[in-house]
């Protein structure tokens, strides 16, 4: 570790001691408390210059290297601060897509507002598309200066609380599925938009469904050209693969104390079987962290291969399942009694049943484990792709 990084760590730690929210877990058992905590903590981080280390240097708090970001994530995890669930899509997905594809006008219009707290969500998935993004059917028809949009989106993280939405729509039904997609920036206050939260199996409502009924979106709010939506969406998705997983892996390692506490509370410090399971888990988490580190180092050096991100995601999702499973097992019957969940508590809240169920979000969302396995075997290992013989339902034969 260099002196500069040590200094940064020291600074971040001191800043967190003075500024990290203290009793947020108790507050975040209601949605109001969750929203207030998230908004307050994000504003604090913006003020401290720690909210968007991954942005370009010309933005306040941006321009940090990988090593610096890692230090920041490790310290945030160590201080047990809330994850920025509410502004996550805004600072990662929306921002990086706008940096890459936005015109100067679009960037000037949208990016500063993210730092002011404007919340974005992502409107990619659809009830019948799931991990198959190219199967998007929400229709957009151009009429003069606007697109008129009709359809339904699902699994929009934080969609019920968001102001804006990254929207993937179909502008053409003929030809290759990917080629008919267009990328729009939707104002969720626009006429014809309805957002409805989805109640998940552990009681939280992290996701929403969006219903779009003759919604008008100005052509000026299109990212990239018409028909270029697939390529734009790939940048959006890439932004979450990597840095996020670095943060999440570090947080998982930082949360090992929860299991250590359980082992002590249940008097199993000398239970060799439990110690082995714990030791194996700790090593696997170290491996997941090492893989995430290596992935980012390769990306920065320009050596990233298609499929590398899938290795990182699959490792994380399976390791998180192991982590929550061990906690659930150690907590025994107590974990079966319902406790209020902590909204936005990170992936490891110590409410083991909720955490365990939430681990499924990581084996399904952002491309299921099975989709990742397809990518790894076909793109990374060069195994043959499945023959594609089908067409979109409703396509002209």
């Amino acid at each position, binding site marked *: 570790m260099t002196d500069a990084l040590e200094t940064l760590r020291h600074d971040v730690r001191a800043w967190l001691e003075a500024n990290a929210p203290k009793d947020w877990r108790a507050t975040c058992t209601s949605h109001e408390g969750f929203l207030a905590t998230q908004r307050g903590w994000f504003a604090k981080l913006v003020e401290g210059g720690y909210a968007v280390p991954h942005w370009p240097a010309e933005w306040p708090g941006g321009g940090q290297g990988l090593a610096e970001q890692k230090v920041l994530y490790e310290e945030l995890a160590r201080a047990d601060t809330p994850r920025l669930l509410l502004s996550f899509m805004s600072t990662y997905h929306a921002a990086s897509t706008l940096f890459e594809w936005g015109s100067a006008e679009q960037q000037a219009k949208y990016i500063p507002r993210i730092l002011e707290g404007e919340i974005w969500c992502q409107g990619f998935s659809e009830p019948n598309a799931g991990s198959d993004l190219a199967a998007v059917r929400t229709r957009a028809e151009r009429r003069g200066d606007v697109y008129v949009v009709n359809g339904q989106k699902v699994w929009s993280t934080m969609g019920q609380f968001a102001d804006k939405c990254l929207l993937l729509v179909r502008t053409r039904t003929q030809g290759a599925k990917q080629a008919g997609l267009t990328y729009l920036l939707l104002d969720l206050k626009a006429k014809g938009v309805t957002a409805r939260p989805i109640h998940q199996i552990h009681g939280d409502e992290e996701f929403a469904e969006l219903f779009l009924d003759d919604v008008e979106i100005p052509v000026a709010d299109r990212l990239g050209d018409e028909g270029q939506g697939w390529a734009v969406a790939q940048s959006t998705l890439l932004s979450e693969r990597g840095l996020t997983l670095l943060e999440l892996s570090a947080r998982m390692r930082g949360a090992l104390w929860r299991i250590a506490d359980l082992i002590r509370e249940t008097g199993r410090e000398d239970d060799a079987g439990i110690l082995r399971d714990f030791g*194996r888990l700790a*090593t696997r988490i170290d491996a997941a962290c090492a893989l995430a580190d290596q992935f980012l180092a390769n990306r920065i050096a320009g050596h990233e291969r298609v499929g590398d991100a899938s290795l990182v995601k699959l490792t994380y999702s399976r390791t998180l399942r192991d982590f929550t499973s061990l906690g659930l097992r150690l907590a025994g019957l107590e974990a079966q009694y319902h406790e209020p969940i902590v909204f936005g508590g990170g992936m490891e809240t110590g409410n083991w049943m909720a955490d365990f169920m939430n681990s499924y979000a990581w084996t399904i969302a952002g491309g299921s484990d099975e989709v990742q396995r397809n990518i790894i075997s076909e793109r990374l290992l060069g195994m043959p792709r499945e023959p594609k013989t089908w067409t979109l339902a409703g396509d002209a034969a």
Partner: protein
Amino acid sequence: MSTDRAELRDATRKAFGAAGLAPALDTSWNTVTEMGALMMAVPEDLGGLGLGREAVGVIHTELGRTLAPGPAIAQMLVIEALCAADGLAGRQDLLDRAIAGEIMTASLARADAWGALTAVPDADRASHVLVVGEGRVSLVPLEGAAITARETWDRTRRLFDVRPTADGLVLAQGAAATALAGRLEAQMLLALAGDCLGGADAILELTIEYLGTRRQFDRPLALFQALKHRVADMKTWLSAAEALFWNRATDAAAGVAELGALKAHAASVYRAITEDAVQLHGGIGLTMEHHCHLFLKRATLNATLGGDADYWEEQAGRAALRKAAS
């Protein structure tokens, strides 16, 4: 991957390339000595290349990849111990002979059991054996020693029980011996982990190749999603274990416990991959004429050499418990 690491890997792979899988002992040992593998970690003023653990990691990964026979891991422990033996008369001569390929061996059992001298590679061809005992590390000549061959399932390794009769040369004593024993154990664990991951990578590649050529139901096996997903899982666990390996190989602070946990992890990944490889090869994977069994057997031997997963995972669990309390 660093450029140095990639270059050394390519050079080593090239050196072993022609000999193929599980080469003959003499051929393999000549390659090991000729390419300078034994002098990698030796300081320059003692006639070595002065490269660190990372280079040692590359060598053992590549030896594991080709299922190389021979006492490379044991020999490097002897060389490490000689390098540490500052005051030893005639050290440079012994070191030069060891680097040149005169076999000097050591036990690959877990450190607690080193005094017992079990699992000693190629002892019948060795001039000396390293003995790590309580407060004392010594190099004992093997003339007159009782050497019992133990036939192993793993045909790529030859192991012996050894009962020396002489006392030998003292390389370290007291606290210095304890510290050296720890370093030797750490190096053995790193070497074994490297052997596991190199082997795992090789058999995974061979399995993927096989799935691409073998046809069933009018198409290559590689088209069946059930099989692709198994291979993808193997690749994923292997990649994470490799990242951990290089992380710990280059971390000067990584001690015996960390390297023991790494070795246990690498060995379990190796085993899982070799087991799947047998299954994915089908009937041919069950035969002696095919390479699957060589990897499977080396994986199961590696899992017990240097201490098994039960031991190291328990240690890792205790360490994690302590760390979480601090």
